[in-house]
């Protein structure tokens, strides 16, 4: 066949494959993003605690030891016990499971729904976009916690309903940000090219457009995990979230804060520290993800 072959010069436009070893990349990363790596360390610590909780403590999180109620921190109970004689350290470890499960479940469901709806809204445009965005406006008009409270009040308490309650305010937030990015993607010819290749709407939205808005999606996702953990703790603290005796940080805070603030401050302090540290870790990590993925916000 007599085709004109690409010239030698063209062939030289090659990929320079990244062969830097992992540890070296990690070192570079730690130097460039020390804060983000610190955040990541907290996140990893939390995941580690959640997974290995049974091996890290000899106690059971729901075992009431009435002989040792409100024991101060010491050799037997590192962080002390609560009013039912349960080991606080153990409950914090197991509480990390609840926090992570609710956090990741709510963030994943909320962000994925938001991603699909946001891209679809930008892709179809016109009337669909207009109506859909106004519905999102309605949801955005409520403060996060109020909307979540309203959902729990309707559906009832329990872990599953807490996840739904946290998910619902996340969807419009994510859809809004994703849509604005997808609007720009919609105008790039490869979307028209995909249509000219005869692909269906769903395939174009999921396979051709969604991967192109991954950067804002991931930024939102990491931020959502932190927010979800905080929201879950808030709901539990208000008695509208996870119910006793499931170990959850917000719940521990509620049990301890009011009655024992003076007599046994450790009951409230430790779960408070755990919540702060977790949210702080996810936010730091999220900020650093944003800095890495969004060059416009990179510090000058």
């Amino acid at each position, binding site marked *: *066949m*007599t*085709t*004109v*072959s*690409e010239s030698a010069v*063209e*062939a030289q*436009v*090659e*990929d320079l494959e990244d062969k830097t070893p992992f540890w070296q990349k990690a070192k570079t990363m730690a130097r460039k993003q020390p804060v983000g790596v610190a955040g990541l360390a907290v996140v990893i610590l939390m995941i580690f605690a959640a997974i290995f909780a049974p091996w890290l403590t000899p106690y059971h999180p729901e075992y009431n030891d009435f002989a040792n109620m409100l024991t101060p921190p010491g050799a037997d109970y590192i962080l002390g016990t609560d009013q039912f004689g349960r080991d606080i350290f153990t409950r914090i470890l197991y509480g990390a499971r609840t926090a992570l499960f609710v956090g990741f479940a709510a963030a994943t469901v909320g962000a994925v729904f938001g991603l699909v709806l946001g891209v679809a809204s930008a892709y179809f445009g*016109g009337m669909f976009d207009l109506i859909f965005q106004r519905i999102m406006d309605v949801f955005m008009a409520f403060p996060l916690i109020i909307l979540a409270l309203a959902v729990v009040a309707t559906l009832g308490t329990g872990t599953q309903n807490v996840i739904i309650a946290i998910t619902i305010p996340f969807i419009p937030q994510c859809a809004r940000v994703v849509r604005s990015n997808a609007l720009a993607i919609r105008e*790039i*010819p*490869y979307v*028209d*090219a*995909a*249509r*000219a*290749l*005869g*692909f*269906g709407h769903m*395939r174009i939205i999921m*396979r*051709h457009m969604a*991967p*192109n808005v*991954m950067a804002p999606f991931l930024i939102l996702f990491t931020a959502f995990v932190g927010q979800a953990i905080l929201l879950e703790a808030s709901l539990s603290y208000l008695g509208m979230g996870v119910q006793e005796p499931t170990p959850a940080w917000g719940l521990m805070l509620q049990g301890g804060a009011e009655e024992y603030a003076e007599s046994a401050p450790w009951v409230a302090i430790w779960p408070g520290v755990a919540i702060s540290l977790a949210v702080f870790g996810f936010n730091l990590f999220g900020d650093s993800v944003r800095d890495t993925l969004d060059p416009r916000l990179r510090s000058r």
Partner: protein
Amino acid sequence: MALLEIKDLQTQFFTSAGTVKAVDGVSYTVEEGETVAVVGESGSGKSVTAMSIMRLIPWPPGKIVGGSINFDGKDLLALTDDEMRSIRGRDIGMIFQEPMTSLNPVLTIGMQLTEPMIAHLGMSEEAAMEKAKKLLGMVGMSEPDRRLAQYPHHLSGGMRQRVVIAMALACDPKLIIADEPTTALDVTIQAQILELMKNLTRELGVAMIIITHNLGVVARYADRVNVMYAGRIIESGVASDIYHRPRHPYTLALLKSVPRMDRQREAKLDPVDGQPPDLTKLDAGCSFRPRCRFAKDHCATSFPALEDIGGGHTSACFEKDNLDKEVKDVVG
């Protein structure tokens, strides 16, 4: 019967400034294996005609309001969306103007090349990959195995356009619509790509509509030419007739504006005077009238019909027989 037969196609855009008659009664045919060029300046409706064939006019604001498009025995305007979708990419391939942006940056060349084959022909991934390798060889790319794993940003503009051509050919289409396929490329690469497209379409017997504003492309690669102005075809014929015996003042003006080797180096280019008309404000007369050096009073009364002047050469001009002197100047 012709492979593609467009009859009296009308596509309009309903905007707040008024109705834009982007395509106003266009008719042309494409025979099997034939290369037809559509020429005209920006806004003449050549791309809108192509998008109308694909039925990819965005509504709102655009809509095909009249005419018929027969492709391979089917009336495209009567098909359901699903039926139309199975024609796009399978029976009609499309090559876009900008190779830098018509490939998806986050999918590998292999994924993008095999996707239409898997979606339309139900091929397995392995079979599609094999075919993709062959296609990359056909479009003159080295190391197809490695290319399949690469992303668009690994390739240069010319190589990307080769991939786009391979994608258009993937499902063995009967017709390829190339919308200014070389506009975004370097001049040296343009020739390579056009040569490649010409060879491939000849070899595979694929018909091609090539949309361009480059008359050099027309002369060399097209069998027949349709010249469009303000949403209408104003002259059509075999390429040599258009090039050597233009019978419309607009075609003449276009030919005059092409830089030529045989003129003095200091000679100024001869552009088409004036601006293309506002498509929302067309009157009953010839739309080229305000820019036309041959315009007479009767040009304002009605739009001249396309008249056959022998050998399939048609022109829509009242003064088409009075151009000879200037034609001699231009064509020599």
